[in-house]
């Protein structure tokens, strides 16, 4: 299981701020997690569609599609940041 967090506009459009997800079998990466989320259809497919702009952090470090994920990890998805 991994913890998945959603922030800002992504949290709103998915109607979800936090969930637990079982990792796909094998050597999981951010990419495998995104595939699993896209497979839910509707707003999930749209939010993670290719070309849509989102960012990902693994264990609170900026990450990418190829970043490996392991059970217990915290994975966060969010739009480009706009603080300051």
């Amino acid at each position, binding site marked *: 299981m991994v913890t998945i*967090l959603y*922030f*800002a*506009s992504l949290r*709103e459009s998915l109607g979800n701020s936090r969930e637990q997800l079982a990792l796909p079998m094998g050597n999981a990466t951010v990419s495998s997690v995104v595939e699993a989320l896209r497979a839910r259809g509707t707003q999930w497919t749209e939010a993670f569609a290719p070309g849509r702009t989102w960012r990902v*952090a693994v264990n*609170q*470090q*900026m990450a990418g599609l190829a970043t490996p994920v392991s059970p217990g990890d915290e994975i*966060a998805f*969010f*739009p*480009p*940041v*706009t*603080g*300051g």
Partner: protein
Amino acid sequence: MPSVRVQEADFDTGKELETLTHGRRDVGAVASFVGIVRDANDGARVSGMTLEHYPGMTEKALEGICAEASSRWDLTDTLVIHRVGPLRPGDRIVLVGVASPHRGDAFAACEFIIDYLKTRAPFWKREDTPEGPRWVEARPSDDTAAKKWK
């Protein structure tokens, strides 16, 4: 030893900057930046905004940015305070303070920290406009500003 805080409460700019030099005699320059909520953005009137962040990651990101600044320039201390929650036009959003023996280093590091904060620290702004709330989009100009430090 960067000091990094994320808080709902306002801050006292003078008092906070004072902590950068208190008890020291080797600081010649303190450069600072205060970001403030404007009442207009991208052509719309803004009556207020709400700042969301990613607790835990935010502090790590800010500490990392300050550490990077300290490795690039000769600094004696750095300070970042960023507010979250509801804010109104005229309210302070963020304070970046940098102390150094020399002013050139203080200015460069201060601008570096705010430029990196704007592209790498997990904060998001939702503005209240006459057409309802909207999430602020990231600005290409912020990416450009951050890239000049590569």
